């Protein structure tokens, strides 16, 4: 078996770790057959991030959002229950809620004026007397709830598979790292107003890789580091010297590392001045009081880029971003990104956090647009997949102490992907 073997005769994930080989067929990024299997075996069966509890903080709050190609309503009922429904009328199917967010006592489909409370129950059906008495006996005329909806520390996930394992089991080892983020404020965390909804002209899996790729940082984001140098008079202290990738199992992975940028919780940089230094010192002291020195230091100084399989990213870096991405087609994805911040954060700190977020992250940042370009160029390169057929993901294979510039974390993703898409027999 070698590079001359036709691509189609090999599994898409060619994992021969003992021989130092780990490759992924570029067909996996371009073929619509592969996407069909992903939609069924991955997006149809995995827990998918929907939203944060703070986005629907009050009874009656709702928002509409797309997940796994479905149109959904995420709402908090008047009894304070968090719900998620398919945004389609049980009568003829019209989208019931057309607003992006708001507060409502009911949802009314304008087509025939059927109306539903925020628990999804039918509350009005014009011409009611013309329906059989038992026409909604089994809830057929209520909004259809998502099969499964569960939360961990304020993060709501849905699952389209009734038989899926519970969320806590699915999240497994990622919970340790979610906790390091959610513990940053005793009063809890909240999503800041304003969603970045953008897209990449690339296969969705490329962003899963990119989100925790330490290897591309220097070459792809050279201008970002130029900016940090110019702004702070140098690259600055990373404080912690670690560089650790973790395969968390289940396709989840995280990289932990020190970095020169400022962290609103709780690592200042010269550009923040004395005010920033005092403020972060106070935040660190509070963390130490709550968690002891070691954990406080880990929360404050260590950066984390985590991918929760298949498509949810929590990056706790120069700010905290929550990000989902999903395929629109083999070569196109949609991305939603939010800023997560401590509840009740001081206005100056919040301002600094958002300023920091935008220096790197998002479609107008100093870094993400270059990722956008890199991923688009990969996708364009896959036009040659018939002849130049393989991606190499072998960096750091069989190293005793791999760094975040190795590719342990991507291999974790791909092994799970292969298991779900290609099955255990391959």
């Amino acid at each position, binding site marked *: 078996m070698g590079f001359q073997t036709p691509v189609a005769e090999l599994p898409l994930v060619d994992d021969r770790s003992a021989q130092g080989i780990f490759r992924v067929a570029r067909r996996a990024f371009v073929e619509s057959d592969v996407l069909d299997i992903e939609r069924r075996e991955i997006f149809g069966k995995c827990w998918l991030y929907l939203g944060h509890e703070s986005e629907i903080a009050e009874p009656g709050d709702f928002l509409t959002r797309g997940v796994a190609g479905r149109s959904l309503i995420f709402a908090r009922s008047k009894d304070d229950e968090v719900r998620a429904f398919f945004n389609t009328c049980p009568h003829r199917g019209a989208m019931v809620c057309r607003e992006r967010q708001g507060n409502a006592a009911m949802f009314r489909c304008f087509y025939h004026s059927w109306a539903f409370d925020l628990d999804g129950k039918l509350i009005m059906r014009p011409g009611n007397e013309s329906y059989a008495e038992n026409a909604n006996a089994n809830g057929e005329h209520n909004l259809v709830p998502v099969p499964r909806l569960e939360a961990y520390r304020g993060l709501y996930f849905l699952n389209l598979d009734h038989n899926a394992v519970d969320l806590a089991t699915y999240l497994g080892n990622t919970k340790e790292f979610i906790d390091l983020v959610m513990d940053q404020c005793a009063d809890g965390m909240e999503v800041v107003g*304003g969603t*970045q909804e953008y*897209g990449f002209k690339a296969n969705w899996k490329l962003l899963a890789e990119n989100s925790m790729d330490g290897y591309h940082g220097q070459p792809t984001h050279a201008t970002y580091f130029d900016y940090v140098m110019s*702004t702070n008079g140098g690259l600055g202290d990373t404080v912690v010297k670690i560089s650790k990738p973790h395969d968390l199992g289940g396709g989840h992975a995280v990289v932990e590392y020190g970095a020169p940028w400022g962290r609103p919780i709780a690592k200042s940089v010269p550009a923040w001045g004395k005010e920033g230094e005092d403020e972060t010192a106070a935040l660190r002291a509070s963390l130490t009081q709550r968690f002891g020195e070691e954990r406080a230091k880990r929360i404050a100084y260590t950066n984390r880029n985590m991918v929760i399989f298949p498509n949810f990213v929590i990056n706790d870096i120069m700010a905290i971003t929550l990000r989902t991405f999903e395929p629109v087609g083999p070569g196109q994805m949609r*991305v939603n990104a939010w800023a997560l911040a401590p509840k009740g954060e001081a206005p100056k700190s919040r301002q600094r956090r*958002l300023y920091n977020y935008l220096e790197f992250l*998002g*479609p107008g940042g*100093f870094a993400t*647009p270059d990722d956008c370009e890199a991923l688009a160029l990969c996708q364009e390169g896959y036009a040659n997949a018939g002849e130049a057929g393989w991606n190499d993901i072998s960096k750091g294979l069989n190293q005793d102490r791999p760094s975040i510039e190795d590719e342990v974390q991507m291999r974790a993703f791909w092994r799970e992907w292969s298991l779900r898409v290609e099955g255990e027999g391959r």
Partner: protein
Amino acid sequence: MSAHVLPRKLSVSRSDIEDFLFGEAALLDDWKLTEWVALFEQGASYYVPTAGAPDDADPATSLFYIADDYHRLTERVKRLLKRTAHVEFPHSRCRHMVSNVRITGGDDSAFSVTSNFATYRSKRGRTELYFGHHLYVLTLASGAIRIRQKTSFLDSDDIAEQGKVSIII
């Protein structure tokens, strides 16, 4: 909407302002970003809120795409002129259309202007359209118009098609 009343204390006309805005657009079309940033006064700011944001969106409390103070604006320009700003190397071709210019208030020390925009960006066979309105706070210093604040509001629901805001729109 109230009837439009031209501010009395303003010593430049709308056509003076249009000349200025069309000149700004020409600099952006030509990638003359060093000259473009020189149109801003020291301490100026440049904002692009997330698509669909209201006119009173505040970068201190809401996530934007771009919220640059003067320092970061000058750094943005430096970045975009480097080969290592990969997304804009080679430079995309852009055309900035500006129209519907209105003076909405103020005096020579600071006056507000709005305009509509449609900016096209083309690269590797793909063309993206950014459209919306700009809000400017302009000022007159020694007879020259300078930008104190520029905010570009996008009217699209999102930027899934455009993907990024890698140019000055």
